[in-house]
């Protein structure tokens, strides 16, 4: 069921266009992300990066084009995404305030929960077993990301970096084959960014939950370090795409996005 397509294209966008009222947010965007790679999407503010993610997730209905996931057309509906094999983190932290860290991560595994309504209402052993399994999976992941000690804490009390990791754990526990990260390094300090970079680079190769990654980020160090391929958006259009090296040397990108004095 979760056979890992090797080598193929995990996500493909064909001529996607989005407009809000009169405002064109995306125009004829086509791109392909190879399985087992990390693809970065960069571009000026308001270029349409988040909107691109929203199209893939079904939060925004494109008015043109198609989205293909693992070769077949995707009619994205946000709540079906997880079971289709796509997970996403949000800008900021986006944890459920009223759930503990552990519960947050367990919630991430919702689509693999099997206990039915009746067994849940009656508190039958079937439901308990299911819960125990989810809890174990969640604990394992928290442990892998080094935040297991916070399992019983409330999200509001977490240091920011820990919160971001928990959010990542919540996305990973669903065992996605494609992970969309929206500004994962936003607000993180230097060390934390490095650790995050290491983590992301590892994701495609991970034994337990190997997946392809697509990320939007303004933190150029991170992008350059982790991405196999980079797509640059400006005014809703793809203006460049290539390896980190190619992008860095692309004068148009430097002009529109990086600015005169390139931050390394």
């Amino acid at each position, binding site marked *: 069921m979760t056979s890992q397509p090797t080598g193929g294209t995990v996500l493909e966008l064909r001529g996607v266009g989005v407009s809000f009222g009169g405002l064109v947010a995306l125009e004829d965007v086509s791109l392909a992300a190879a399985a087992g790679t990390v693809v970065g999407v960069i571009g000026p503010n308001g270029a349409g990066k988040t909107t691109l993610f929203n199209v893939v*997730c079904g*939060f925004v209905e494109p008015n043109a084009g198609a989205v293909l996931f693992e070769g077949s057309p995707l009619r994205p509906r*946000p*709540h*079906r*995404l*997880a*079971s289709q094999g796509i*997970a*996403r983190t*949000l800008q900021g932290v*986006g*944890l*459920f*305030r*009223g*759930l*503990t860290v*552990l*519960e947050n991560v*367990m*919630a*991430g*595994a*919702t*689509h693999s*929960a099997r*206990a039915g*309504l009746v067994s*849940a*209402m*009656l*508190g*039958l*052993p079937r*439901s*308990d077993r*299911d*819960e125990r399994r*989810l*809890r174990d999976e969640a604990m394992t992941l928290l442990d892998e990301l*080094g*935040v297991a*000690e*916070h*399992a*019983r*804490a*409330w999200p509001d*009390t977490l*240091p920011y*970096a*820990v919160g971001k*990791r928990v959010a990542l754990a*919540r*996305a990973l526990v*669903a065992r996605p084959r494609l992970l969309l990260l929206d500004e994962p390094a936003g607000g993180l300090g230097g*060390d*934390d960014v490095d*650790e995050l970079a290491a983590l992301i680079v590892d994701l495609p190769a991970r034994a337990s939950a190997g997946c392809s990654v697509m990320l939007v980020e303004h933190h150029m160090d991170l992008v350059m370090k982790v991405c196999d391929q980079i797509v640059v958006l400006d005014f809703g259009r793809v203006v460049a795409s290539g390896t980190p090296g190619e992008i860095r040397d692309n004068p148009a990108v430097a002009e529109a996005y990086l600015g005169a004095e390139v931050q390394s």
Partner: protein
Amino acid sequence: MSTTKPAERKTVPVQATRSRMSRFVVPSPLRPGEGSTLLRHLLWVAVAAVVVYFVSYGIDPFRNYQLATVAAYLCVTAGLTMLTGLNGQLSLGHGALMACGAYTVALAQNEFSDRDLFGPWRLPISLALGVLVAALAGALIGVCAARLRGPYLAGVTLAVALVVPAFTTRFADLFNADQGLSVYVDSPPAGLGPYFPPERWQAWIAIGAAMLSLLIVANLVNSRFGRAFKAVRDDEVAAKLVGIHVARTQVLAFVVSAGCAGLGGGVLAVISQSVSPSVFGLTLSLNLLLAIVLGGLGSLFGAAWGALLLVLLPYLTTEVTRGFELSPRLANKLEGNLPLAIFGLTLIIVMLVAPGGIQDAFRALGRTVRRRWRRT
């Protein structure tokens, strides 16, 4: 240049603060290595049942009636606190859902007794039907509610609360309009003896129903569905992304809490042996809301406090004012109004001093006491 020693850098920089904080963190309902949810909750129920059994022998019939009323409300507040507290959906129309249960029970009881059907199972079957009908109505409202938020949901459910009299008038042949129906209720089983007060029997029925409702809500809250309820309340976008169908979850919460309301309404019909539309008006719906917020929103203990308050507060305010000797002129003006004023004032004061409700206040008190205890 100042020269403090550089702090050790770790992923978790504020370790000291953190661990102190985590002491206040209420343990997640899922403790590692615990046993069966059902057994644990059944144990609670059994303890409560035994306590109530003895209590019901120790008090007079009127107190038993009050106990039964509390239990009937508890059926409803348990479901409502789940809906409003845990799932974030405000309902001002649960009185109407209680009416669904109550009228179904009334019609079923009368019909069954006319035809002499089902023997000792008559009441459970009627109540089950009441739950079913209320749950169906809840599903209908829930489907609409799932699209609405905040005051818009409040407005629609308020409108729901107001349609009960219209329905009973429109279908007067069935529901007998304002006058309502009387409900056939079997007398207590002969085995309990000839002088067994019916109020005590009613209290048992009501407590049984309340325990059932609490058991189911508690189980549900502790399951993945409970997690989904809270997730939807906290962040709909994130909830969708983890694979929760937001609308369906909201409808589910509505249906379950409507079922609880149906049960409560049915029990109320049984203990008062009558149903009429004005019982289930807006006042009742608002009172239910008062109960769960005053008790402590989102907590089943809070729901219990709330149900208790709903019965005791009006009673006590009246008793208190009864103590005053008033001249006839003053009595004409104050009688009735004085208890209401005190009731209103009490609500306000409780909300001001315990914004998290009674349960929360007790929890805070418990913490303080424990801290003091440790210190000495």
